[in-house]
């Protein structure tokens, strides 16, 4: 429930991507219009066809690649960042044995490794405090 009120990076990225896709659809529409004119199709028919196909392209992009990009960012990056946030909250509340379980050798895995090193030194510190 609370998660929904909070902002997300996806909104920002998707807004830009969707704007870009609309520009792309307009570009494709203009190209189609020019292609039709070159073949002697009369302007009003050419306009009708190119607008229809630009709208069609925009819709296919929205349900295909744009949705795909959204899911990809969510699954490959954001879910792991949320997981790390949870872990940091646990460690700061004293659950010093919360260790990150992230595999791979990308940027997020690097973050998890750095965090793990820090956690181990905090743990050593805890022992000294007793």
């Amino acid at each position, binding site marked *: 429930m609370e998660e929904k009120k*909070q*902002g*997300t*990076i996806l909104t*920002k*990225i998707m807004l*830009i*991507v969707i704007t*870009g*896709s609309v520009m*792309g659809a307009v570009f*494709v529409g203009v*190209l*189609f219009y020019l*292609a*039709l004119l*070159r*073949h002697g*199709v009369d302007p009003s*028919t*050419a306009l009708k*066809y*190119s607008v*229809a*196909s630009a709208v*069609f*392209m925009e819709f*296919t*992009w929205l349900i*295909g*690649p744009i949705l*795909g*990009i959204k899911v*990809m*960012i969510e699954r*490959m*990056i*954001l879910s792991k*960042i*949320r997981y*790390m*946030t*949870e872990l*940091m*909250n646990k*460690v*700061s509340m004293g659950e010093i044995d919360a260790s990150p379980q992230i595999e791979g*050798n*990308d*940027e*997020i895995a*690097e*973050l998890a490794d*750095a*965090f793990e*090193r*820090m956690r181990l030194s*905090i743990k050593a*510190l805890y022992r000294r*405090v007793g």
Partner: protein
Amino acid sequence: MTLLNKITLIVFAGAVAGALLTGVVLYLILILAGVEGREAMRTTVPYTVLIGFSFIVPVFMIRWLIEKFILSKVKHMSEVINRISKGEIEAKVDIRSDDEIGRMAEAFERMRMSLKLLMSKVGGR
């Protein structure tokens, strides 16, 4: 492989598929508008190539967006965490935004504060 390259590769494959689809649509509307088949094909191929090349722009735009909004900040966090584990407890994460990264930075800052408290206790002995 870095995340960015992985995502770029997938987006690029998608762009190629998208350009091909655009070509098919162009061919169909040319036929629909009464252009003869071979003539339509001759126009479709160069236009599809042109559209394919223009799709490089969004591919790089998406790459840039992910880098700017997410990965550069993740790298910054890793750096700060490394500095802290080397004892630089004053190293701060300089990120303030209402999103996943911002919340992670906040959680990290809370953790850093409790760590600092702990360290001052140890130092006192």
